[in-house]
């Protein structure tokens, strides 16, 4: 296997506020190989965005504190890198597409300038040349170069997101973090943008961390999937593992929450309850209060990590080395 482009080990992040300590990440592990597209799936507040910001070392501090863990980006230790080294990596080794294109662009700066900055910062070229290159990438994301001199408010949501993507791609990064890149967009635009990202990713052979709550997007674009719950990966595997050999009850719950387009008469089965308060997580398995299969042990002990294959594991008390390979306890309707 290739040397991983991203390796996160046991990442623990807390937000320490006046109202208490929010445990955003509780020992997150994640590895991405070059060219791989890795989906990070979970509900709002599970720690998805914190993971992305952690890789860029841009977790707002205060209140965010990285308590434990290591992040290696293309072999470089992010936690031990100083600000100057991080500036070299951001936009060049790794870049991020942010969730809300409406607020992610500077309202008082032209679009072309906002893209050109990436070239000026990392390629040591003059402004005129940087602007020329920004026009090229605008065309690449499907925006006429002539519109580069306009301001963000003159663009539609989908167009803005294309600009945000152009900014992220401009440095030709080895890893692209996409944080819910299509959530804020209309469904039809979503498909276009996703399609474009898929295409560009293949062209540049960029590895990608696709942060989303939408399993549809995961199926469309990802090679591997991590399901995150309360700041920890509860199930990880490749696309087939997760979709066809689902093990964790939470993953199953996510699938049951999706409308089944093939059988429209089928009722949705949403996961009961809400995400636990991250400043006051349940003991044991944090999912146990919402879990249909919860046992006594679930509220007492943290579940162990059990591997079904080398790539596919889950953290759940339902499983042990023996039964995980046999199809598990979950029966899909």
């Amino acid at each position: 296997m290739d040397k991983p482009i991203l390796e996160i080990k046991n990442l623990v992040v807390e937000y320490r506020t006046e109202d208490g300590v929010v445990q955003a990440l509780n020992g997150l592990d994640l590895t991405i190989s070059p060219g791989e597209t890795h989906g990070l799936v979970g509900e709002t507040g599970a720690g998805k965005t914190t993971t992305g910001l952690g890789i860029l070392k841009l977790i707002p501090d205060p209140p965010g504190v990285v308590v434990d863990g290591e992040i290696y980006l293309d072999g470089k230790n992010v936690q031990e890198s100083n600000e100057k080294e991080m500036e070299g990596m951001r936009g060049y080794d790794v870049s991020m597409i942010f969730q809300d294109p409406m607020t992610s662009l500077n309202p008082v700066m032209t679009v072309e300038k906002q893209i050109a900055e990436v070239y000026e910062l990392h390629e040591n070229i003059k402004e005129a040349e940087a602007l020329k290159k920004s026009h090229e990438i605008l065309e690449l994301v499907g925006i006429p170069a002539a519109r580069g001199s306009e301001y963000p408010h003159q663009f539609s949501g989908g167009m803005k997101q294309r600009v945000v993507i152009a900014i992220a791609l401009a440095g030709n990064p080895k890893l692209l973090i996409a944080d819910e890149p299509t959530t804020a967009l209309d469904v039809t635009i979503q498909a276009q943008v996703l399609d474009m990202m898929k295409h560009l990713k293949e062209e540049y052979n960029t590895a990608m961390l696709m942060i989303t709550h939408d399993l549809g997007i995961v199926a469309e674009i990802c090679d591997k999937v991590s399901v995150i719950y309360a700041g920890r990966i509860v199930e990880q595997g490749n696309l087939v593992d997760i979709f066809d050999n689902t093990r964790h009850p939470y993953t199953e719950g996510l699938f049951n929450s999706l409308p089944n387009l093939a059988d429209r008469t089928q009722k949705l089965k949403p996961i009961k309850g809400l995400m636990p308060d991250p400043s006051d997580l349940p003991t044991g398995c944090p999912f146990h209060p919402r879990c249909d299969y919860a046992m006594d042990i679930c509220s007492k002990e943290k579940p162990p990590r059990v591997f079904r294959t080398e790539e596919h594991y889950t953290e759940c008390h339902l499983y042990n080395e023996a039964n995980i390979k046999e199809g598990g306890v979950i029966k899909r309707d």
Partner: protein
Amino acid sequence: MWKYILKRLLYLIPVLFGVTLLVYIIMSVAPGDPAKAILGDQATPEAIAQLREELGLDDPIIVQYLRYAKGLLKGDLGTSYKSKGPVITEIAARIPTTLKLTFSAIIIAVIVAIPLGVVAAIKQNTLFDGLSMFIALLGISMPIFWLGILLLIQFAQKLGWFPSSGAESWKSFVLPGIALGFHSMASIARTTRSSMLEVIRQDYIRTARSKGMPYNQVVTQHALPNALIPTITVVGLQIGALMAGSVLTESVFSLPGIGRLIIFSIQGRDIPVVLGCILVFTIVFSIVNLLVDLLYAYVDPRIKAQYS
């Protein structure tokens, strides 16, 4: 854009007539007879009656005002009751002093306030932040005239670094400028800090940082232009406050400006001069407000789009 400017300037005309009418009415209903004020307490009733007639004070207020307004349309600000000279000359003689005073005050204020506010925001909750915001609070709470007196005693009378009255050289404007500008400086610094604090939390700042841009550059190139938008509003408002403050400052530092002229004229019931002064202040204030709005459009393309 030009259409917008023209519209604003045209709108100023009825406002100015409204302002003069308002002040005219206030001055007319106010107790105190201009004729008596001019001639003094010893004047005979006949002399007063004669002067009242000369000045047209016996006509109904509205007739008096229309007479004034007619002159105003021709650019005539009238004649001073007291000096008998044209109001425009009296004002012209004093306006440079007031303009120099307010100008030096706003320059001092802006030059100190914006860096102070920006740095305080970036270093939020540090000693520097606490100290500069404490100074800003003092600036907001300190009466101009008290600060003026203290500066006057210390730096003019005791140390002799600056003249204690008059408006002969640039040195005459240093202490008044500081006294008058301190309050504005404090307001501008506080606004800059709080708008900066809001801006540096915006998503686009995160975007800029994710490009690998050094933080200082993010602050100056991305945050500052956005944070200046509310600051510009406050600077505009402060110029209005400075004009009013100039009345107090000119009094403390014995500067021969419009501020003192207006006080003398109100006390002497010299209505044409009062009106002239208010008119000048209002015109300057309105033009400053227009400039502020144009500056807005320059800084913020979203606002510019609304104008054209």
